[in-house]
């Protein structure tokens, strides 16, 4: 999927992705020539199809997690299917639930990496296998991170 500014004959560049939380996706693209911005708006079915491929429009904010698609998409999963066995060498750390990933994606890009690291370290130190919005809320309260 690419966008072309026909008037400038320039390939438009990805600017920003938004997940409003209603199953849709919005992505903005900007022409590097004239500065015109267009938004790609996908309906829930289109959004789901992209998500089903395991790819992220605008690129990934965090590394692909083990069984990421299965864990985020299966609606009838066991609550206790997974246990955290700890890290092996340079592992990827705790998993991120789909809702947590969406919430992280809404954090402004320039502080997102730092915010992510804080949550990962918080989860690692407490042996938490999966970062969920509830874990994020607890971390914010405990670590005094209101606003993140």
């Amino acid at each position, binding site marked *: 999927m*690419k966008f072309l500014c*026909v008037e400038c004959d320039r390939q438009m560049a990805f600017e920003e992705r938004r997940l409003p939380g209603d*199953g849709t996706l919005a992505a903005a693209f900007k022409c590097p020539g004239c500065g015109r911005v267009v938004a790609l708006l996908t309906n829930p079915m289109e959004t789901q199809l992209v998500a089903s491929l*395991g790819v992220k429009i605008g690129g990934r904010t965090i590394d692909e997690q083990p069984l990421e698609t299965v864990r985020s*998409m299966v609606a009838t999963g066991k609550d206790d299917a997974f246990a955290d066995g700890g890290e*092996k060498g340079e*592992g990827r750390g705790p*998993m991120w639930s789909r809702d947590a990933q969406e919430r992280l994606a809404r954090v402004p890009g320039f502080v997102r990496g730092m915010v992510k690291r804080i949550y990962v370290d918080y989860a690692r130190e407490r042996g938490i296998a999966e970062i969920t919005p509830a874990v994020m809320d607890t971390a914010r309260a405990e670590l005094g991170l209101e606003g993140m």
Partner: protein
Amino acid sequence: MPLNFRTYHELTDPDRSGLPEQIGAQRRRVAERVAGVRQVVAVLSGKGGVGKSYVAAGLSRAVARRGRPVGVLDADLNGPTAPRLLHLPVARCTLRGDAIEPVVNAEGVKCFSMALLVEDGRPLAFRGPEAESHVWRGALEAAALREFLADVAWGPLDLLLVDLPPGIQRFQELADLLPAPPAVLVVTIPTPESADAVRRALRAVHDRGAPCLGVIENMTGGPFAGDAGDSLAREFDTPLLARLPFHPGVHAWDALAQRLGSAS
């Protein structure tokens, strides 16, 4: 007057989304994970109910008894049976580093299955819009298969048996995901109806360039009459590896494992 503008392949600027690169990274992850597997073998049939999972389980246990490291990937996402057939212990899936550890049975067979993840007695259901769900459900199941290959710590194995559901779609997905099409073990029952369905599947295997290790005729000596095993083996110039009766004993499985060892 029609607009004159460039098309997709004519735009070559770097793209921050990098969707092709993301897909490429997924494929590399699969390739890296299965690099330690000497042979991936798809257990396949065009026909349902012929005993693919039963054969995969019995064969894997026999291979393990011979001291060879073996795994079973249960690719029947909607009707997973491998954990019960392999007598897997009830266990949570352990996340360690960048992978999920497979569950191991008493004989040392490693296994991963959707049955380990989905609530007992409930169907595999996905989050998402219900309308037109057929559009994305197939893509999600293929993604689940990819993650079972890429994200399970299979470790070094002599043999990874992929227990496929009936039909040919999951085989095509598997062949798409792996660096090379997998070898195939074909399971049939003796009847001509089974031969008809399995023939179509074998033709797809042949067209895909996947090597066929042989045919296993299951449920022989019972109420199912016919010679599907022999006729398919002749037609596709592949060995008939075994005729398995109802309730085959340990010796039948061991003989199949030995035969497969010399055929692969």
